[in-house]
């Protein structure tokens, strides 16, 4: 039996970052590793051009297996960014081998190389000391890794009014080009800054793992606006790029096609039991240390299965989400911008709502998803809804609000005896901040109404975390210490979102990566 120094489970943000930190060491990565499908050669160019010139986009937008229509008939809807035919590989197969049973949960599990981050919006945010209040670590512990990652990935953005929440970063690339509607929003904010600041609301450019100039051989973003339909745009970082590079440079022994089921820790080694997804044969791999980065839900499943624990309920944190449609009537009747993007245009921070904490809002244009995904949510006859969306799209911004989540969690998971994860939870409907923002936006000419606010179900944010939280002194096996060690002892380290102690209102991916690098380095030192 070969004894490796490290086994990393999963190739998502946590696994990729840990592998990057341990490059050149004796590391084996075990992963299901579904890869992105090839994209037909005629599906190139901008979404706008394709829609106007391509005679039939059915195979690319809907799919020969009608993949994109499944939401019409499903109770638990698939995230719009994961449902199109070229994006489905991100969540493909998970329900078969890693099933989830839930009526409320709208999240997802990925078995793809690079994980759910293959379909992310690229939000790359550093946590502040306030964000890390409930963690046993501080910003100083993560700073070095954030810097390394910024250099590795390439982050665009600007040091503006949001620096107190996002940190000053001298190495940012220029921010992405804004749509005219978002640009006007920013200009009006700048003219009315005192009004906004008086309400503790601040606006600035998002920090995105999206290149605006070439970086490490990856091309800058080309504004093709295909984020809802095609993954692996070289400009938008996915952990799969890191994995591919490490493999190519000979720094990583990567085994795909394996699903880790459980582990067993002995005095000599950690034994990891995995199932081959093609042959269904089981095999045991051994290492001195195990880094669990399979994605928060899958990591929790592996931990519970390893203890054959079918009773314990673990907490689940999820950022409650809401969406506000904003209309600037002066843009009604304008032509749709041909060169645009579905990435976050602006970030808004809404500070200090009593009992709610800091909220982060990201503004998007509505040019990315299919109109048919939105038309039927409008309280209008279908012909009117379609016409309204067609005429008003150039005038509409979508404000997606992320609320923070902390313990006690509103959700829980348990491992069923049949191996399915049973998830319960509900998303708290917090209306105070939305009301305040609608009032404030109205003053700068962006109109909405409380009846147009949508509160999304539990898990919709895909920011799921907190099952095995880090604490100063773990009091039970299902807690981790500051080094991510399960139960505060031994050689099992949790490196993904499962070890987060709380969820600030920010995309957590960048911090998962920084924390995974930190834990990997600590694990290496204690080897």
């Amino acid at each position, binding site marked *: 039996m070969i004894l490796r120094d490290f086994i990393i489970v999963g190739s998502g943000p946590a696994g990729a970052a840990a592998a990057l930190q341990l490059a050149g060491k004796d590391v084996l990565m075990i992963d299901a590793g579904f890869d992105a499908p090839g994209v037909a050669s005629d599906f190139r160019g901008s979404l706008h051009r394709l829609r106007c010139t391509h005679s039939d986009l059915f195979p690319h937008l809907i799919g020969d297996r009608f993949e994109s229509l499944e939401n019409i008939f499903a109770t638990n809807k698939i995230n719009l960014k994961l449902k199109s035919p070229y994006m489905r590989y991100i969540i493909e197969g998970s329900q078969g081998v890693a099933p989830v049973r839930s009526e409320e949960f709208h999240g997802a599990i990925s078995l793809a190389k690079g994980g759910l981050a293959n379909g992310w919006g690229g939000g790359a945010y550093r946590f502040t000391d306030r964000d890390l209040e409930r963690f046993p670590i501080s910003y100083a512990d993560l700073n070095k890794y954030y810097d390394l990652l910024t250099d590795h990935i390439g982050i665009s953005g600007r040091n503006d009014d949001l620096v107190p929440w996002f940190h000053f970063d001298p190495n940012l690339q220029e921010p992405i080009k804004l749509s005219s509607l978002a640009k006007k929003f920013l200009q009006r904010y700048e003219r009315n800054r005192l009004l906004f600041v008086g309400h503790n609301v601040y606006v600035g450019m998002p920090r995105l793992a999206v290149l605006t100039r070439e970086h490490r051989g990856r091309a800058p973003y080309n504004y093709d606006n295909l984020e809802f339909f095609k993954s692996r745009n070289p400009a938008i970082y996915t952990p799969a790029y890191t994995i591919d590079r490490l493999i190519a440079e000979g720094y990583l022994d990567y085994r795909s096609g394996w699903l880790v089921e459980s582990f067993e820790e002995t005095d000599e080694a950690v034994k990891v039991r995995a199932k081959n997804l093609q042959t269904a044969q089981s095999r045991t791999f051994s290492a001195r240390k195990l880094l669990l980065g399979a994605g928060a839900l899958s990591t929790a499943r592996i931990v519970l299965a390893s203890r054959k624990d079918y009773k314990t309920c673990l907490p689940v944190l999820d950022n409650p989400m809401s969406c506000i449609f904003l209309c600037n009537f002066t843009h009604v009747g304008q032509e749709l911008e041909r060169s645009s993007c579905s990435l976050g245009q602006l970030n808004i921070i809404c500070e200090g709502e009593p009992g709610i904490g800091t909220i982060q809002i990201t503004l998007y244009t509505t040019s990315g998803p*299919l109109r048919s995904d939105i038309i039927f949510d409008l309280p209008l006859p279908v012909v009117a809804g*379609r016409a309204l969306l067609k005429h008003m799209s150039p005038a509409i911004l979508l404000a997606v609000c992320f609320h923070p989540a902390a313990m006690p969690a509103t959700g829980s998971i348990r491992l069923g005896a049949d191996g399915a994860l049973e998830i319960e939870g509900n998303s708290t409907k917090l209306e105070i901040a939305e009301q305040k923002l609608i009032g404030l936006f109205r003053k700068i000419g962006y109109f909405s109404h409380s009846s147009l606010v949508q509160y999304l179900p539990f898990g919709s944010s895909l920011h799921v975390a907190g099952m095995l939280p880090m604490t100063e002194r773990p009091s039970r096996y299902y807690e981790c210490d500051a080094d991510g060690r399960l139960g505060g002892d031994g050689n099992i380290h949790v490196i993904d979102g499962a070890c987060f102690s709380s969820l600030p209102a920010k995309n957590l991916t960048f911090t998962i990566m920084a924390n995974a690098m930190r834990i990997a380095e600590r694990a290496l030192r204690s080897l």
Partner: protein
Amino acid sequence: MDFVGRREGLEREAGFFYRSIFGLDPGPLLLKRYVEAHNQFRFNEKGATIIQKVVQYKLDVVSIEYIMRLRDKDNALTQRFKVLHFLAECQKESSADFIESQADPFRIWLAIVWQAVRTVRCLLLGSYLLRRYDLA
């Protein structure tokens, strides 16, 4: 119903719905996909009789769907409308129905006002038709 009969029934239904929504006849490819979608997915069958009635009497299906959606967003008629919309949105000939390509604020504001009037009409007519033909 035999296979051919079912297919013809679905094509007839799709044609009627499509004309009501988009104002023209659907192409053969769209009809074929509409039928295939019915083979692929399990549609809400509770509304099958309602749909038969709507097609048989050629009722104002847009108004009826609107009222039914306000009551139950996953009703049988809305499911069929959604499928037709997705299929249409992928085709170049329908792109003008979904994408604004000409800046013309005056025309567009007129269109929006017209749609507001039409919404009120749908609300009243849909409620009436549901009662009159016992479609609820």
